[in-house]
């Protein structure tokens, strides 16, 4: 164990400044003292520990590097990646939205079928309920409009018919609706239905339709009270 490393054999040490001969001799003799060298175990332990320390250092630097400019850039990249993933996931949810739209469409179709079924029902109360529900659909669904018009023209129950006339009245300007309703006015026998149709023409009718109504009221084809109502209304609001 006792050995002097070659690198230190010729080390002269600091300048020895004593004038004492005995001390000078001691100074010289010191150089020849045997020097223990550490075991190889020390070297192995050191390099093992150095490796561990190096790993810890790199782990810490990786964390710290997150706050450096490249680290922030990487973080921004992660954020962008997250946004992109979000967009992708959002797009992937589009089919779910379309499925919901399809479902809503199916519900709308079912509702439409239900309304049409009710308008065609044998039950007057169901037809009346169908008329009320159809008033919202008639403007965008020709088939519902056609079914509603049928109820307005020739439903055998006056309450259903007058309800249908009230619902379809705002679309009197539509040629198909206008022609049908004006024709039914000439055929209607019930004073209640005549009154509903006359009020509809008075409210929504074109000048031609008002003129036609006025002529009907003058020919005796309308109930006298309805005719009087039309004449008085037209006299208050001339065409």
């Amino acid at each position, binding site marked *: 164990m006792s050995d002097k490393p070659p690198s230190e054999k010729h*080390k002269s040490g600091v300048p020895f400044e*004593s004038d004492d001969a005995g001390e000078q001799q001691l100074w010289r003799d010191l150089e020849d003292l045997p020097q223990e060298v550490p075991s190889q*175990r020390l070297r192995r332990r050191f390099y093992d520990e150095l490796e561990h320390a190096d790993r810890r250092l790199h782990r810490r630097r990786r964390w710290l590097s997150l706050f450096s400019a490249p680290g922030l850039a990487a973080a921004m990249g992660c954020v962008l990646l997250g946004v992109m993933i979000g967009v992708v996931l959002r797009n992937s949810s589009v089919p779910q939205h379309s499925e919901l739209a399809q479902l809503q469409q199916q519900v709308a179709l079912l509702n439409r079928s239900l309304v049409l079924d009710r308008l065609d029902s044998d039950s007057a109360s169901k037809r009346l309920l169908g008329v009320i529900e159809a008033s919202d659909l008639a403007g965008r669904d020709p088939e519902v409009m056609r079914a509603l018009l049928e109820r307005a023209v020739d439903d055998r129950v006056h309450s259903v018919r007058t309800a249908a006339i009230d619902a379809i009245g705002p679309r009197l300007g539509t040629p198909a609706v206008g022609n049908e309703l004006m024709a039914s006015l000439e055929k209607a026998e019930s004073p209640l239905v005549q009154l509903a149709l006359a009020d509809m023409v008075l409210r929504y009718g074109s000048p031609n339709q008002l003129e036609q109504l006025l002529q009907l009221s003058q020919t005796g084809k309308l109930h006298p009270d309805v005719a009087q109502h039309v004449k008085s209304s037209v006299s208050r609001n001339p065409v």
Partner: protein
Amino acid sequence: MQAVSDEQLIQWVADGDASCLGTLFERHHRSIYQYCLQLTRSSAASEDLVQDVFLKLLQKASSFRGDGSCKAWIFHIARNVAFDYLRRADRRTTIDDEGDENANRLVDHRSTEQVAAAEQNLNLVARALAEIPAAAREVIWLGRFVFEDYEDLAGALGCTASAARVRMHRAMQQLHSTFMRMNGVPIDV
């Protein structure tokens, strides 16, 4: 002449290249071990302290300012580590006794009837060195075996160069008087 200076190596360690510490280890671990051995008189403790010294260097590499030599700075850290150990173990009061035992071991190992008179004289020097106080022993050891100028010695000891000169002078006086007492006569010139 070393291709890369200690100062450059410790700078690279500070910059994160821990492998450079290996080069510093190869250059200085024996000297540090022998220095610690002079203070602790224990091989196992000295090896532990060398390990601690280099771990400290890894942690403190960035604190090296280059005011003095890197070697002096390393030995200053070694000195702090060694004295911390001595304080913790409360060994400063018993260090000289252990030193005697260690010195006796060296003497016993070498002082046979067959060894030359010069070697016997050398063993007496070793015993005397082991007997003087640790503070004196470390100055002599560092001044004799580690550093070649008082500036670096002072850097390691944490004092001024003139204070290092004074401490060296007193330490050698102590060694000389101890040697004479042990030898019975003044050393031959």
